[in-house]
């Protein structure tokens, strides 16, 4: 069944039709949320909130790219979830064992950003990339994820983040500049086809 028919049926209250839409977009929504939040459970919460919000706001969708419309909701849900987690951090700052003893170096307090000399394979490179994306300000992060991960064009991103195209352009350039700087030392981890992109190879 096509997307428009599913949307129309969902608007009439057909929950099955709505859930077909959920199944069609949940991977894309979760992947985007994960890249923005860098945290599985947080991305899961944000994705669930986004689909509930999508159900409640479906009547406000008036055509155009449904994916872009959904990405706007996902991005907002991520921002909300990030703010909620900032207000109420869920992890205790002083870790204790079940017996109440203080743990000096708990695993979750270790910096998971890989060091250049420790990085060994692509999964490490992925961690480095994710770490650098996470280090960006929210406004830069969302733009780089929407363009380079979700593959949206500038016009859609401008509509998603409620900003002019010029702002999208400049934020994206700034985000890429920061990522370049953050990733210095990790490029040798790239597979050959990425590494050969120098001036001669372009």
């Amino acid at each position, binding site marked *: 069944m096509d997307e428009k028919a599913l949307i129309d049926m969902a608007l009439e209250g057909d929950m099955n039709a709505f859930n077909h839409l959920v199944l069609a977009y949940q*991977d894309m929504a979760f992947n985007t949320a994960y890249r923005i939040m860098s945290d599985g459970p947080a991305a899961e919460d944000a994705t669930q909130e986004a689909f509930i919000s999508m159900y409640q706001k479906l009547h406000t969708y008036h055509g155009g790219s449904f994916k872009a419309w959904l990405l706007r909701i996902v991005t907002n849900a991520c921002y909300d979830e990030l703010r909620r987690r900032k207000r109420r951090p869920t992890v205790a700052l002083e870790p204790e064992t079940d017996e109440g003893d203080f743990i000096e170096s708990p695993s979750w307090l270790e910096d998971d950003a890989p060091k250049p000399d420790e990085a060994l394979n692509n999964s490490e490179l992925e961690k480095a990339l994710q770490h650098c994306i996470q280090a960006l300000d929210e406004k830069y992060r969302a733009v780089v994820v929407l363009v380079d*991960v979700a*593959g949206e064009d500038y016009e859609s991103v401008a509509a998603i983040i409620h900003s002019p195209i010029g702002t999208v*352009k400049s934020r994206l350039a*700034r985000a*890429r500049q920061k990522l370049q700087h953050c990733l210095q030392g990790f490029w040798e981890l790239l597979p050959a086809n*990425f590494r050969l*992109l*120098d001036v001669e190879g*372009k």
Partner: protein
Amino acid sequence: MNNKLGISNKDWINLSAYIDGALSEQERARLDKRLAESKDLQQELANLQRLKAAVHALPKKKAPRDFMLTPDMVKARKPQANLFASFRLASVAATILFLVAFAGEAILKGNIFQGQQPAALEMEAALSRESDQAVEDPQIITWGYSPEAKGLGGGGVGGAPMAGSAEPLMPIEESPVEIEVEIPQGEPSLMAEPQEEELDLASPGTGEALILGLRPETEGQVIEAEKDAPREQERGLNTTTLRWVQGGLAVTALITGLIALILHFRRKRLIQTK
């Protein structure tokens, strides 16, 4: 701002848009020309393309579970979220209005108090001066006749006939006591009374002299203090209304705040149990 390679921010923005194909024909042609001339720009372009490819190549994370909704999930959330927001808003609005009413009253009271204070102090000072004077030198106030006019109308010693009248208007027992006001020349404080219009003490015996601060022609009229009584009543009524409004706002703020708090905790528990 230029970096060490002499590439400006504008160059960065254009290079970034270039790899996304987001430049206009004109901008693209201009940048192509510059790229042909600058090795630095070419290198930065290559770096940007590599970065974009790397980010795009990040593994796509699959949803760890299905996010399908059930009718209960949607039903349970929507009205409660709206109710919580409504009660929170009502509570905040009532609190703000209560504070405004309270502050407004305080400011008004302050103005009234400030406006009344000098007059009250002045009156107190005048009374104090009068009593001092009375102790040292008993005052005699004449009203409407001079000592020379004594006997006109057969008033006798105790009677003080009104100016121009042949008969005493009151029985002797009720008639005002004859008091002659003597203004000591050496005491400028009394002369310096600011209320010259009301306290015309300069012409005793002319029939316009004041008795206890009142002109003879005001006899039998309602004095100002009595005229203020309805105003006082009105003010009292306004204060009562204000108290009711303040009380109502305080109760509203408390009740709506309490309901919002209960809804908030119920919602929190719902999220935790999910």
